[in-house]
């Protein structure tokens, strides 16, 4: 395997890990009842974790 191929393989594995990580995060948040619709700009949901992050940025 050449250097290029190794880089590609490493990149792909990193992508897989990232994908799994995001997936687990989404599922975990959903199970905690904290799933957000990704539409924070328009959302007024009370106690939405994403919104809290956004609000704390404002402060």
């Amino acid at each position: 395997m050449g250097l290029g191929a190794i880089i590609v393989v490493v990149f792909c594995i990193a992508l897989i890990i990232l994908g799994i990580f995001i997936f687990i995060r989404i599922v975990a948040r959903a199970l905690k009842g904290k799933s957000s619709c990704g539409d924070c700009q328009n959302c007024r949901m009370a106690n939405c974790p994403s919104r809290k992050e956004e609000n704390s940025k404002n402060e």
Partner: protein
Amino acid sequence: MGSNIALIGNPNCGKTTLFNALTGSNQYVGNWAGVTVEKKTGRTIKGNFNITDLPGIYSLSPYSLEERITRDFVINENPDAIINIIDGTNIERNLYLTVQLIELGKPMVLVVNMMDDVEAKGWSIDCDYLSKLLGMPIVPISARKSENIDEVLKQVEYVIEHRIIPPEITYDLKTQNALNEIYSVIVKNICDAGKIPYNFYAAKLLEGDMESVKTLKLDNVQLGAVEKIVRGYEKSSECHDREAMLADARYKFIEEVVRKTVVKNESEEALTISDKIDAIVTNRFLAIPVFLLIMFLMFSFTFGPVGKFLSDIIEILVNDVIASFISGILEKANAPQWTYRLLLDGVVSGVGGILTFLPQIAILFFCLSILEDSGYMARAAFITDRFLRRLGLSGKSFIPMIMGFGCTTPAVMATRTQENINERRMTIMLVPFMSCGAKLTIYALFAGAFFKGNKGLVIFSMYILGFLVAIAVGLLLKKTVFKGNMALFVMELPPYRMPMPRSVLKNTWDKCKGFLVKAGTVIFSMSIVIWLLQNFSPSLHMVNDSSQSIFGVIGTTIAPIFAPLGFGTWQASVSLLSGLVAKEAVVSSLGVLYGAGGDSLSAVISSVFTPLSAYSYMVFCLLYVPCVSAFVTIRREMGSFKWALASAAMQIGVAYVVSLFIYQAGSLIERMF
């Protein structure tokens, strides 16, 4: 920490528009009462203020959730000042809240919005005199055009610095006497309660709002004394009704103020532009055809040549430019075969396949924004109320249902404007049947593959079917679960307004951004996970034949359940499962599983489905449970896990039965001819 300011006003008078102008934030605005259902705080661009945008209320004696949020905020959070925004074209009713806010004894600035509309009507408001009469600074603005916005903050700063509190209002003699007498009874308790002045509590006691005076902890002797005063007060009028009498006193005061400061030049029955539009839009005979026409135009615009053209451009970009770029790199690097499958069949087909729907989603939300901004939504509620009442709903359920065409999550939240709990629960259960924007991707794929000539019509039929199923289920629920309830339907019909291009574009862009974020996170991770599940066997070995994979095994197990519906392949079954995370994932899963995107996916689909089974699959996707985030929202808004589960179970059942019926009836007809 700066000063805390509460932004309060009637529903639909431009609070959120002002909030956005002051803070540079981009909150969602629409032209119907109750857009804002939760408070939101933001910092002003200029000056050192935290402004809290509160839901609109008509009065400080609240019934519905959003009205309580506002009242509790003012009483518990003790803001440094109140900005009361009123609609200049509807000044009398708007000042009713102002009068009650004055009782709270906070520094106040009155902002008279819609001054451009006031001028257009040929009215004039003498703001200087109004300011003298009410004892607070008045700032005339036009929030839509961002006129005079800086002046608002200047005045706020001024009233806080000099603690300018508007003087108590003097009502008619009878009312004033009753208030004074009540005051003498409760004076001791007020000193303990602090913050809020006596006028507020005395007025609340006089009108019989016991919830607001709980903090006073009055004893029975005091309550008895108050009751006696109230009875005497009621006797002094012929209508013997404390609530009506106090409201009347307040309105009398307002009428006097308005008479002195506002010049209206038209006779009350003169036709306004809104009246002229309404002559057609809410006409007895034309209203329903016009409504259907608007819906049809919206959908044909979305699925028409414009959307198709833009989709094609994105598809070319994804397939020809990005995909060939990646495969070029892989070839050069001499990378192993599985990386091709991961990057091209997994990520590019999954994420890229979804991106081709961006134009349609954008156009749909663009149309919905225009409808919301124009004021048509309230008319639609007016037109459909009688009909929806037969289903145990009300016209107010209609707005969430239309919003459901966009996204179920905010639509479920919009049900908060409904005061009746049964009505609200029922609306929440039916909203998911309104086909959301994400499901569009599924229809577009299948209708494009099988019903080329009638694509628009087939997709439109999905929306109609969803509506019909909602009606049927609504009737059923009314007969069984939600028996007999009388809700109220008092709703303001706002004047039509020209949608603000800025607000419409902003709103559309926000939705697109949400869609892109979702494609980058949820859909991306789903594509990877699906790819893994499809390429590894249960014993975690890489397999070449994906029917041996984890997904293949799961899919093969559950596929027989769907065989009677016409789509018993394992790929179709597991795609439904991934649709639980996000509806777009159904399409991206099929893309990953068949290793194809765009036109090539259409080709694969048309070889494994028949037109009938494709239609059946679309119907199932339309009706079965909404995505996780919608489910979580439903759970929260219902306030119970049981209700959310029940509604999910109901939806799956309905989806199965309807799809089964369509497929079996369809095959029967096919066999007959």
